[in-house]
Protein backbone atom coordinates (compact mmCIF):
# COMPACT_ATOMS: atom_id res chain seq x y z
CA UNK A 1 0.00 0.00 0.00
CA UNK A 2 1.94 3.02 -1.21
CA UNK A 3 1.32 6.32 0.46
CA UNK A 4 0.64 8.13 -2.78
CA UNK A 5 -1.83 6.73 -5.25
CA UNK A 6 -0.34 5.49 -8.46
CA UNK A 7 3.22 5.60 -7.25
CA UNK A 8 5.08 2.42 -6.45
CA UNK A 9 8.68 3.59 -6.53
CA UNK A 10 11.52 1.15 -6.82
CA UNK A 11 13.49 1.07 -3.61
CA UNK A 12 16.73 -0.49 -2.47
CA UNK A 13 18.31 -1.13 0.87
CA UNK A 14 21.33 1.01 1.75
CA UNK A 15 22.86 -2.13 3.18
CA UNK A 16 24.21 -3.36 -0.13
CA UNK A 17 24.44 -6.98 0.93
CA UNK A 18 28.14 -7.27 0.25
CA UNK A 19 28.13 -10.71 1.74
CA UNK A 20 31.19 -12.42 0.46
CA UNK A 21 31.64 -15.94 1.60
CA UNK A 22 33.93 -15.73 4.62
CA UNK A 23 37.25 -17.53 4.47
CA UNK A 24 35.84 -20.97 4.96
CA UNK A 25 37.99 -23.00 7.22
CA UNK A 26 40.11 -25.67 5.68
CA UNK A 27 40.03 -29.24 6.81
CA UNK A 28 42.04 -28.83 9.96
CA UNK A 29 41.33 -25.26 10.88
CA UNK A 30 39.83 -25.58 14.31
CA UNK A 31 40.58 -22.01 15.34
CA UNK A 32 37.60 -20.77 13.45
CA UNK A 33 35.18 -18.88 15.65
CA UNK A 34 31.44 -18.97 15.12
CA UNK A 35 29.75 -15.62 14.46
CA UNK A 36 28.25 -15.56 17.94
CA UNK A 37 31.28 -17.03 19.70
CA UNK A 38 29.72 -20.38 20.58
CA UNK A 39 31.54 -23.68 20.62
CA UNK A 40 30.88 -26.01 17.67
CA UNK A 41 28.70 -28.31 19.76
CA UNK A 42 26.98 -25.67 21.81
CA UNK A 43 23.36 -24.66 21.25
CA UNK A 44 22.00 -21.18 21.69
CA UNK A 45 20.16 -20.64 24.99
CA UNK A 46 16.51 -21.49 24.45
CA UNK A 47 13.60 -19.51 25.83
CA UNK A 48 10.08 -20.92 25.66
CA UNK A 49 6.79 -19.61 26.96
CA UNK A 50 3.32 -21.01 26.50
CA UNK A 51 0.13 -18.98 26.26
CA UNK A 52 1.34 -16.17 24.02
CA UNK A 53 -1.92 -15.80 22.10
CA UNK A 54 -5.14 -15.71 24.13
CA UNK A 55 -7.52 -16.18 21.22
CA UNK A 56 -5.95 -19.55 20.32
CA UNK A 57 -6.70 -22.88 22.01
CA UNK A 58 -3.02 -23.13 22.78
CA UNK A 59 0.09 -21.21 21.83
CA UNK A 60 3.77 -20.87 22.49
CA UNK A 61 6.57 -18.43 21.86
CA UNK A 62 10.17 -19.49 21.32
CA UNK A 63 13.34 -17.48 21.13
CA UNK A 64 16.76 -18.93 20.31
CA UNK A 65 19.30 -16.22 19.67
CA UNK A 66 17.66 -13.93 17.15
CA UNK A 67 15.27 -16.61 15.88
CA UNK A 68 11.83 -15.76 17.21
CA UNK A 69 8.64 -17.63 16.44
CA UNK A 70 5.05 -17.77 17.65
CA UNK A 71 2.89 -20.83 17.13
CA UNK A 72 -0.88 -20.91 17.66
CA UNK A 73 -2.98 -24.05 17.78
CA UNK A 74 -6.70 -23.97 17.00
CA UNK A 75 -9.10 -26.81 17.51
CA UNK A 76 -9.92 -29.60 17.46
CA UNK A 77 -12.58 -27.99 15.29
CA UNK A 78 -14.79 -28.79 12.32
CA UNK A 79 -12.89 -30.00 9.25
CA UNK A 80 -13.29 -28.22 5.94
CA UNK A 81 -16.53 -29.11 4.15
CA UNK A 82 -14.82 -30.85 1.25
CA UNK A 83 -13.03 -33.31 3.53
CA UNK A 84 -14.17 -36.87 3.56
CA UNK A 85 -15.14 -38.70 6.71
CA UNK A 86 -12.15 -39.83 8.69
CA UNK A 87 -12.11 -41.79 11.92
CA UNK A 88 -8.81 -40.25 12.90
CA UNK A 89 -8.23 -36.54 13.36
CA UNK A 90 -6.50 -34.37 10.83
CA UNK A 91 -3.54 -32.12 11.33
CA UNK A 92 -3.16 -28.94 9.28
CA UNK A 93 0.06 -26.94 9.44
CA UNK A 94 1.07 -23.58 8.07
CA UNK A 95 4.32 -21.66 8.47
CA UNK A 96 4.64 -18.06 7.36
CA UNK A 97 7.22 -15.30 7.69
CA UNK A 98 6.76 -11.63 8.51
CA UNK A 99 7.98 -9.14 5.91
CA UNK A 100 10.71 -8.04 8.33
CA UNK A 101 11.82 -11.54 9.37
CA UNK A 102 14.67 -11.74 6.87
CA UNK A 103 17.49 -9.20 6.32
CA UNK A 104 16.05 -8.40 2.89
CA UNK A 105 12.44 -7.18 3.09
CA UNK A 106 10.39 -10.10 1.85
CA UNK A 107 6.83 -10.64 0.85
CA UNK A 108 5.88 -12.32 4.10
CA UNK A 109 4.39 -15.25 2.29
CA UNK A 110 3.57 -18.79 3.32
CA UNK A 111 6.40 -21.24 3.41
CA UNK A 112 5.03 -24.38 1.74
CA UNK A 113 8.13 -26.49 2.27
CA UNK A 114 8.26 -25.78 6.01
CA UNK A 115 4.51 -26.27 6.34
CA UNK A 116 4.79 -29.79 4.93
CA UNK A 117 7.90 -30.56 7.01
CA UNK A 118 6.19 -29.35 10.19
CA UNK A 119 3.27 -31.66 9.49
CA UNK A 120 5.54 -34.66 8.96
CA UNK A 121 7.50 -33.93 12.11
CA UNK A 122 4.42 -33.66 14.32
CA UNK A 123 2.06 -36.31 12.96
CA UNK A 124 4.04 -39.17 14.44
CA UNK A 125 3.75 -37.72 17.93
CA UNK A 126 0.07 -36.78 18.07
CA UNK A 127 -2.65 -39.25 19.02
CA UNK A 128 -4.81 -38.48 16.04
CA UNK A 129 -7.41 -41.05 17.07
CA UNK A 130 -8.35 -38.90 20.08
CA UNK A 131 -10.15 -36.32 17.94
CA UNK A 132 -11.93 -38.17 15.12
CA UNK A 133 -13.67 -36.24 12.30
CA UNK A 134 -12.09 -32.95 13.37
CA UNK A 135 -9.02 -30.91 12.48
CA UNK A 136 -6.31 -29.38 14.59
CA UNK A 137 -4.69 -26.34 12.97
CA UNK A 138 -1.11 -25.47 13.80
CA UNK A 139 -0.11 -22.04 12.53
CA UNK A 140 3.38 -20.64 12.94
CA UNK A 141 4.68 -17.14 12.34
CA UNK A 142 8.41 -16.49 12.18
CA UNK A 143 8.86 -12.99 13.62
CA UNK A 144 12.57 -12.93 13.08
CA UNK A 145 14.65 -15.43 11.15
CA UNK A 146 18.03 -16.01 12.74
CA UNK A 147 18.88 -19.49 11.50
CA UNK A 148 17.59 -22.98 12.34
CA UNK A 149 14.09 -21.60 11.80
CA UNK A 150 12.38 -24.90 11.08
CA UNK A 151 13.69 -26.77 14.15
CA UNK A 152 12.62 -23.87 16.38
CA UNK A 153 9.17 -23.82 14.77
CA UNK A 154 8.79 -27.58 15.34
CA UNK A 155 9.81 -27.49 19.01
CA UNK A 156 7.61 -24.47 19.62
CA UNK A 157 4.66 -26.12 17.85
CA UNK A 158 4.83 -29.18 20.07
CA UNK A 159 4.68 -26.92 23.15
CA UNK A 160 1.70 -25.08 21.68
CA UNK A 161 -0.03 -28.42 21.11
CA UNK A 162 0.62 -29.39 24.71
CA UNK A 163 -0.73 -26.00 25.82
CA UNK A 164 -3.89 -26.66 23.79
CA UNK A 165 -4.33 -30.01 25.55
CA UNK A 166 -3.91 -32.10 22.41
CA UNK A 167 -2.92 -35.64 23.36
CA UNK A 168 0.62 -36.54 22.34
CA UNK A 169 2.94 -39.46 23.01
CA UNK A 170 5.71 -37.03 23.88
CA UNK A 171 6.94 -33.53 23.14
CA UNK A 172 8.84 -33.16 19.88
CA UNK A 173 12.25 -31.51 20.10
CA UNK A 174 14.13 -30.54 16.95
CA UNK A 175 17.75 -29.60 16.33
CA UNK A 176 19.78 -29.10 13.18
CA UNK A 177 23.46 -29.45 12.43
CA UNK A 178 25.44 -27.77 9.66
CA UNK A 179 28.42 -29.33 8.02
CA UNK A 180 31.14 -26.78 7.31
CA UNK A 181 34.23 -28.24 5.72
CA UNK A 182 34.95 -31.20 7.97
CA UNK A 183 33.36 -29.71 11.06
CA UNK A 184 29.88 -30.15 12.41
CA UNK A 185 28.30 -27.13 14.06
CA UNK A 186 25.06 -27.52 15.94
CA UNK A 187 22.13 -25.08 15.88
CA UNK A 188 23.55 -22.94 13.04
CA UNK A 189 22.75 -19.23 12.70
CA UNK A 190 21.59 -17.68 9.43
CA UNK A 191 25.11 -16.78 8.34
CA UNK A 192 26.41 -20.32 8.87
CA UNK A 193 23.42 -21.80 7.06
CA UNK A 194 24.09 -19.60 4.03
CA UNK A 195 27.43 -21.25 3.31
CA UNK A 196 26.99 -24.72 4.75
CA UNK A 197 28.16 -27.74 2.75
CA UNK A 198 25.50 -29.98 4.16
CA UNK A 199 22.91 -30.06 6.86
CA UNK A 200 21.01 -32.51 8.99
CA UNK A 201 17.84 -31.89 10.89
CA UNK A 202 16.52 -34.34 13.41
CA UNK A 203 13.28 -34.16 15.33
CA UNK A 204 12.61 -36.66 18.04
CA UNK A 205 10.50 -37.54 21.02
CA UNK A 206 13.16 -37.43 23.73
CA UNK A 207 11.50 -39.65 26.36
CA UNK A 208 10.64 -42.35 23.83
CA UNK A 209 13.96 -42.00 22.02
CA UNK A 210 12.18 -42.09 18.67
CA UNK A 211 12.93 -40.06 15.57
CA UNK A 212 9.84 -38.49 13.99
CA UNK A 213 11.60 -36.66 11.18
CA UNK A 214 15.10 -36.69 9.76
CA UNK A 215 16.48 -34.87 6.75
CA UNK A 216 19.96 -34.67 5.25
CA UNK A 217 21.33 -32.53 2.49
CA UNK A 218 24.83 -32.62 1.09
CA UNK A 219 27.18 -35.57 0.91
CA UNK A 220 27.65 -37.62 4.07
CA UNK A 221 29.78 -40.63 4.96
CA UNK A 222 28.49 -43.18 7.47
CA UNK A 223 30.75 -42.15 10.40
CA UNK A 224 29.71 -38.52 9.91
CA UNK A 225 26.06 -39.54 9.97
CA UNK A 226 26.56 -41.42 13.21
CA UNK A 227 28.33 -38.50 14.82
CA UNK A 228 25.80 -35.89 13.63
CA UNK A 229 22.82 -37.98 14.70
CA UNK A 230 24.24 -38.60 18.14
CA UNK A 231 24.96 -34.89 18.48
CA UNK A 232 21.37 -34.05 17.58
CA UNK A 233 19.87 -36.73 19.81
CA UNK A 234 21.82 -35.47 22.81
CA UNK A 235 20.85 -31.88 22.09
CA UNK A 236 17.20 -32.89 21.62
CA UNK A 237 17.06 -34.57 25.00
CA UNK A 238 18.49 -31.41 26.63
CA UNK A 239 16.06 -29.24 24.69
CA UNK A 240 13.24 -31.56 25.71
CA UNK A 241 14.06 -30.91 29.37
CA UNK A 242 13.93 -27.14 28.85
CA UNK A 243 10.56 -27.51 27.14
CA UNK A 244 9.23 -29.73 29.90
CA UNK A 245 10.30 -27.20 32.54
CA UNK A 246 8.45 -24.50 30.64
CA UNK A 247 5.24 -26.56 30.69
CA UNK A 248 5.62 -27.34 34.40
CA UNK A 249 6.10 -23.66 35.22
CA UNK A 250 3.01 -22.72 33.25
CA UNK A 251 0.98 -25.44 35.00
CA UNK A 252 2.09 -24.46 38.49
CA UNK A 253 1.50 -20.76 37.72
CA UNK A 254 -2.08 -21.42 36.67
CA UNK A 255 -2.79 -23.46 39.79
CA UNK A 256 -1.92 -20.62 42.09
Amino acid at each position, binding site marked *: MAAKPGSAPVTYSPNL*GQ*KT*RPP*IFKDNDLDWVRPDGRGFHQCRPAFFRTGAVNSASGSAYAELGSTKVIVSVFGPRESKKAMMYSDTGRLNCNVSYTTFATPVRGQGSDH*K*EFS*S*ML*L*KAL*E*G*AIMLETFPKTTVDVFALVLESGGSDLPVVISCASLALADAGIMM*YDLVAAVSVS*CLGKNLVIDPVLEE*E*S*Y*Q*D*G*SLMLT*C*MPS*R*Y*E*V*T*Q*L*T*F*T*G*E*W*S*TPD*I*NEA*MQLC*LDACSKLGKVMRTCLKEAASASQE
Partner: protein
Amino acid sequence: MVGLSVGEKHFIQGGIAQDLRSDGRKRLTYRPIYVETGVIPQAHGSARVRLGATDVIASVKAELGKPSALQPDKGKIAIYVDCSPTAAPMFEGRGGEELSTELSVALQRCLLGGKSGAGAGIDPTSLVVVEGKVCWDLYIDGLVISSDGNLLDALAAAIKAALSNTGIPKVDVAVETRSDEQPEVNISDEEFLQFDTSGIPVIVTLTKVGRHYIVDATSEEESQMSSAVSISVNRKGHICGLTKRGGVGLDPSIILDMISVAKHVSEQLINKLDSEIAAAEASEEES
Protein backbone atom coordinates in the same frame (compact mmCIF):
# COMPACT_ATOMS: atom_id res chain seq x y z
CA MET B 1 -6.70 -44.02 -1.77
CA VAL B 2 -6.54 -47.75 -1.78
CA GLY B 3 -9.52 -49.45 -0.24
CA LEU B 4 -8.45 -52.82 1.10
CA SER B 5 -10.35 -55.41 3.04
CA VAL B 6 -9.01 -56.78 6.29
CA GLY B 7 -8.08 -60.02 4.53
CA GLU B 8 -6.11 -58.25 1.84
CA LYS B 9 -4.28 -56.20 4.45
CA HIS B 10 -3.28 -59.35 6.32
CA PHE B 11 -2.19 -60.99 3.09
CA ILE B 12 0.12 -58.08 2.25
CA GLN B 13 1.53 -57.84 5.75
CA GLY B 14 1.96 -61.60 6.04
CA GLY B 15 3.67 -61.80 2.67
CA ILE B 16 6.15 -59.10 3.62
CA ALA B 17 6.91 -60.86 6.91
CA GLN B 18 7.67 -64.07 4.98
CA ASP B 19 9.77 -62.31 2.32
CA LEU B 20 7.32 -63.17 -0.44
CA ARG B 21 5.30 -60.18 -1.59
CA SER B 22 1.95 -60.25 -3.43
CA ASP B 23 3.63 -59.89 -6.83
CA GLY B 24 6.22 -62.57 -6.07
CA ARG B 25 9.07 -60.22 -5.26
CA LYS B 26 11.39 -60.41 -2.29
CA ARG B 27 11.52 -57.53 0.19
CA LEU B 28 14.55 -55.89 -1.38
CA THR B 29 13.77 -56.49 -5.07
CA TYR B 30 12.75 -53.71 -7.41
CA ARG B 31 10.14 -54.12 -10.11
CA PRO B 32 11.64 -54.21 -13.63
CA ILE B 33 12.72 -50.74 -14.73
CA TYR B 34 12.01 -49.54 -18.27
CA VAL B 35 13.77 -46.41 -19.48
CA GLU B 36 13.05 -44.45 -22.65
CA THR B 37 15.03 -41.33 -23.49
CA GLY B 38 14.34 -38.36 -25.74
CA VAL B 39 10.57 -38.62 -25.32
CA ILE B 40 10.02 -34.84 -25.48
CA PRO B 41 11.69 -33.35 -28.56
CA GLN B 42 11.30 -29.71 -27.45
CA ALA B 43 13.27 -30.22 -24.25
CA HIS B 44 17.04 -30.33 -24.07
CA GLY B 45 16.80 -33.73 -22.50
CA SER B 46 14.02 -36.02 -21.35
CA ALA B 47 13.29 -39.51 -20.17
CA ARG B 48 10.39 -41.72 -19.24
CA VAL B 49 10.76 -44.30 -16.52
CA ARG B 50 8.34 -47.10 -15.73
CA LEU B 51 8.37 -49.16 -12.57
CA GLY B 52 5.48 -51.59 -12.82
CA ALA B 53 2.39 -49.41 -13.18
CA THR B 54 4.21 -46.31 -11.95
CA ASP B 55 5.00 -44.12 -14.93
CA VAL B 56 6.86 -40.80 -14.80
CA ILE B 57 8.47 -38.39 -17.27
CA ALA B 58 11.30 -35.97 -16.52
CA SER B 59 12.41 -33.19 -18.82
CA VAL B 60 15.36 -30.81 -18.67
CA LYS B 61 15.24 -27.38 -20.17
CA ALA B 62 18.21 -24.99 -20.11
CA GLU B 63 18.01 -21.22 -20.41
CA LEU B 64 20.70 -18.57 -20.22
CA GLY B 65 20.38 -16.48 -17.08
CA LYS B 66 22.34 -14.41 -14.65
CA PRO B 67 23.91 -16.03 -11.58
CA SER B 68 22.76 -14.73 -8.21
CA ALA B 69 24.92 -12.08 -6.57
CA LEU B 70 25.63 -14.32 -3.59
CA GLN B 71 26.95 -17.20 -5.70
CA PRO B 72 28.46 -15.72 -8.87
CA ASP B 73 30.28 -18.93 -9.76
CA LYS B 74 27.22 -21.18 -9.89
CA GLY B 75 24.32 -21.80 -12.21
CA LYS B 76 20.84 -22.30 -10.88
CA ILE B 77 18.90 -25.55 -10.90
CA ALA B 78 15.20 -25.80 -10.20
CA ILE B 79 13.29 -29.02 -9.75
CA TYR B 80 9.54 -29.10 -9.89
CA VAL B 81 7.17 -32.05 -9.92
CA ASP B 82 3.61 -32.06 -11.15
CA CYS B 83 1.11 -34.81 -10.44
CA SER B 84 -1.16 -35.21 -13.41
CA PRO B 85 -4.86 -35.84 -12.78
CA THR B 86 -4.54 -38.81 -15.13
CA ALA B 87 -2.52 -40.61 -12.45
CA ALA B 88 -5.23 -40.58 -9.81
CA PRO B 89 -8.55 -38.80 -9.39
CA MET B 90 -7.32 -37.23 -6.14
CA PHE B 91 -4.75 -35.16 -8.09
CA GLU B 92 -7.50 -33.20 -9.79
CA GLY B 93 -7.63 -29.45 -9.15
CA ARG B 94 -5.43 -28.58 -6.22
CA GLY B 95 -5.48 -32.11 -4.82
CA GLY B 96 -2.01 -33.04 -6.01
CA GLU B 97 -0.42 -29.84 -4.76
CA GLU B 98 0.63 -31.17 -1.39
CA LEU B 99 2.22 -34.30 -2.85
CA SER B 100 3.86 -32.24 -5.60
CA THR B 101 5.48 -29.96 -3.03
CA GLU B 102 6.61 -32.90 -0.95
CA LEU B 103 8.18 -34.66 -3.94
CA SER B 104 9.80 -31.48 -5.27
CA VAL B 105 11.33 -30.68 -1.90
CA ALA B 106 12.57 -34.24 -1.41
CA LEU B 107 14.17 -34.29 -4.87
CA GLN B 108 15.82 -30.91 -4.37
CA ARG B 109 17.20 -32.08 -1.06
CA CYS B 110 18.46 -35.37 -2.46
CA LEU B 111 19.92 -34.13 -5.75
CA LEU B 112 21.12 -30.57 -5.21
CA GLY B 113 23.33 -31.00 -2.13
CA GLY B 114 24.08 -28.35 0.48
CA LYS B 115 23.75 -24.57 0.11
CA SER B 116 27.39 -24.26 -0.94
CA GLY B 117 26.79 -26.85 -3.65
CA ALA B 118 28.89 -29.52 -2.00
CA GLY B 119 27.60 -33.01 -2.63
CA ALA B 120 25.36 -31.99 -5.52
CA GLY B 121 24.70 -34.55 -8.22
CA ILE B 122 25.18 -31.93 -10.90
CA ASP B 123 28.10 -29.61 -10.29
CA PRO B 124 26.52 -26.13 -10.41
CA THR B 125 29.89 -24.53 -11.26
CA SER B 126 29.86 -26.42 -14.56
CA LEU B 127 26.83 -24.36 -15.61
CA VAL B 128 28.64 -21.03 -15.52
CA VAL B 129 29.51 -19.43 -18.85
CA VAL B 130 30.97 -16.11 -17.65
CA GLU B 131 31.46 -15.81 -13.91
CA GLY B 132 29.01 -13.39 -12.33
CA LYS B 133 27.45 -12.59 -15.71
CA VAL B 134 26.06 -15.50 -17.65
CA CYS B 135 25.13 -19.00 -16.59
CA TRP B 136 22.80 -21.77 -17.59
CA ASP B 137 19.65 -22.15 -15.56
CA LEU B 138 18.40 -25.71 -15.54
CA TYR B 139 14.70 -26.31 -15.20
CA ILE B 140 14.01 -29.91 -14.35
CA ASP B 141 10.35 -30.88 -14.47
CA GLY B 142 8.91 -34.17 -13.38
CA LEU B 143 5.47 -35.35 -14.39
CA VAL B 144 3.65 -38.22 -12.76
CA ILE B 145 1.51 -39.93 -15.40
CA SER B 146 0.47 -43.01 -13.53
CA SER B 147 0.98 -43.74 -9.88
CA ASP B 148 1.41 -47.15 -8.33
CA GLY B 149 3.74 -46.35 -5.45
CA ASN B 150 7.37 -45.38 -5.10
CA LEU B 151 7.07 -42.14 -7.06
CA LEU B 152 10.19 -40.60 -5.60
CA ASP B 153 12.58 -43.37 -6.69
CA ALA B 154 11.04 -43.38 -10.17
CA LEU B 155 11.31 -39.59 -10.47
CA ALA B 156 14.94 -39.58 -9.35
CA ALA B 157 15.74 -42.30 -11.88
CA ALA B 158 13.93 -40.38 -14.62
CA ILE B 159 15.83 -37.19 -13.78
CA LYS B 160 19.12 -39.07 -13.89
CA ALA B 161 18.21 -40.53 -17.28
CA ALA B 162 16.97 -37.17 -18.59
CA LEU B 163 20.20 -35.47 -17.56
CA SER B 164 22.35 -38.05 -19.31
CA ASN B 165 20.16 -37.45 -22.34
CA THR B 166 20.66 -33.67 -22.07
CA GLY B 167 22.79 -31.75 -24.54
CA ILE B 168 23.43 -28.12 -23.73
CA PRO B 169 24.33 -25.90 -26.69
CA LYS B 170 27.89 -24.67 -26.71
CA VAL B 171 28.18 -20.96 -26.02
CA ASP B 172 30.76 -18.63 -27.50
CA VAL B 173 31.41 -15.40 -25.63
CA ALA B 174 32.29 -12.27 -27.55
CA VAL B 175 35.72 -11.12 -26.43
CA GLU B 176 35.54 -7.36 -26.11
CA THR B 177 33.26 -6.61 -23.21
CA ARG B 178 33.77 -4.12 -20.45
CA SER B 179 33.57 -5.34 -16.91
CA ASP B 180 30.24 -3.67 -16.17
CA GLU B 181 28.43 -4.78 -19.31
CA GLN B 182 26.55 -7.93 -19.98
CA PRO B 183 28.70 -9.89 -22.50
CA GLU B 184 27.27 -10.91 -25.86
CA VAL B 185 26.92 -14.59 -26.40
CA ASN B 186 26.48 -16.85 -29.38
CA ILE B 187 24.55 -20.04 -28.91
CA SER B 188 25.72 -22.79 -31.19
CA ASP B 189 23.13 -24.88 -33.03
CA GLU B 190 25.42 -27.76 -33.77
CA GLU B 191 27.72 -28.36 -30.87
CA PHE B 192 26.30 -29.70 -27.66
CA LEU B 193 27.90 -30.39 -24.32
CA GLN B 194 27.02 -33.42 -22.27
CA PHE B 195 26.80 -33.61 -18.51
CA ASP B 196 28.84 -35.87 -16.37
CA THR B 197 26.01 -37.81 -14.80
CA SER B 198 28.06 -40.44 -13.00
CA GLY B 199 27.83 -38.48 -9.74
CA ILE B 200 24.05 -38.22 -9.75
CA PRO B 201 22.65 -40.27 -6.90
CA VAL B 202 19.69 -42.62 -6.98
CA ILE B 203 16.98 -42.54 -4.36
CA VAL B 204 16.04 -45.68 -2.47
CA THR B 205 12.84 -45.47 -0.46
CA LEU B 206 12.50 -48.02 2.29
CA THR B 207 8.95 -48.52 3.43
CA LYS B 208 8.47 -50.04 6.83
CA VAL B 209 5.60 -52.48 7.11
CA GLY B 210 5.37 -54.30 10.39
CA ARG B 211 8.88 -55.10 11.55
CA HIS B 212 10.41 -55.28 8.08
CA TYR B 213 11.20 -52.80 5.37
CA ILE B 214 10.71 -53.19 1.64
CA VAL B 215 11.94 -51.33 -1.41
CA ASP B 216 9.82 -50.14 -4.32
CA ALA B 217 6.46 -50.48 -2.58
CA THR B 218 3.28 -50.49 -4.66
CA SER B 219 0.42 -48.20 -3.60
CA GLU B 220 -1.27 -51.12 -1.88
CA GLU B 221 1.84 -51.79 0.13
CA GLU B 222 2.33 -48.08 0.81
CA SER B 223 -1.12 -47.93 2.37
CA GLN B 224 0.10 -50.41 5.00
CA MET B 225 3.28 -48.51 5.88
CA SER B 226 4.07 -47.35 9.37
CA SER B 227 6.78 -45.02 8.13
CA ALA B 228 9.11 -44.58 5.17
CA VAL B 229 12.59 -43.19 4.66
CA SER B 230 13.96 -42.00 1.31
CA ILE B 231 17.73 -42.15 1.05
CA SER B 232 19.75 -40.89 -1.86
CA VAL B 233 23.05 -42.65 -2.45
CA ASN B 234 25.72 -41.93 -5.07
CA ARG B 235 28.11 -44.30 -6.75
CA LYS B 236 30.73 -43.78 -4.05
CA GLY B 237 28.30 -45.09 -1.47
CA HIS B 238 27.93 -41.69 0.19
CA ILE B 239 24.58 -40.49 1.42
CA CYS B 240 23.57 -37.37 -0.52
CA GLY B 241 20.27 -36.72 1.11
CA LEU B 242 17.69 -38.29 3.33
CA THR B 243 14.10 -37.53 4.11
CA LYS B 244 11.79 -39.32 6.45
CA ARG B 245 8.38 -39.36 4.86
CA GLY B 246 6.19 -38.98 7.88
CA GLY B 247 4.58 -41.80 9.76
CA VAL B 248 5.37 -42.93 13.27
CA GLY B 249 8.64 -42.34 15.06
CA LEU B 250 11.59 -44.65 14.51
CA ASP B 251 14.41 -45.71 16.78
CA PRO B 252 17.71 -44.10 15.69
CA SER B 253 19.37 -47.53 15.38
CA ILE B 254 16.69 -48.63 12.89
CA ILE B 255 17.40 -45.57 10.76
CA LEU B 256 21.10 -46.38 10.72
CA ASP B 257 20.29 -49.94 9.71
CA MET B 258 18.02 -48.64 6.94
CA ILE B 259 20.86 -46.46 5.67
CA SER B 260 23.18 -49.44 5.37
CA VAL B 261 20.49 -51.48 3.61
CA ALA B 262 19.86 -48.60 1.22
CA LYS B 263 23.55 -48.40 0.40
CA HIS B 264 23.60 -52.08 -0.46
CA VAL B 265 20.46 -51.87 -2.61
CA SER B 266 21.63 -48.73 -4.36
CA GLU B 267 24.67 -50.45 -5.89
CA GLN B 268 22.48 -52.85 -7.84
CA LEU B 269 20.01 -50.11 -8.70
CA ILE B 270 22.70 -47.79 -10.08
CA ASN B 271 24.15 -50.57 -12.24
CA LYS B 272 20.76 -51.62 -13.50
CA LEU B 273 19.76 -48.04 -14.23
CA ASP B 274 23.00 -47.23 -16.02
CA SER B 275 22.66 -50.21 -18.33
CA GLU B 276 19.02 -49.36 -19.01
CA ILE B 277 19.95 -45.75 -19.82
CA ALA B 278 22.72 -46.89 -22.14
CA ALA B 279 20.33 -49.29 -23.90
CA ALA B 280 17.68 -46.58 -24.24
CA GLU B 281 20.15 -44.12 -25.72
CA ALA B 282 21.40 -46.73 -28.15
CA SER B 283 17.87 -47.54 -29.34
CA GLU B 284 17.10 -43.81 -29.65
CA GLU B 285 20.10 -43.34 -31.93
CA GLU B 286 19.12 -46.29 -34.08
CA SER B 287 15.64 -45.06 -34.78
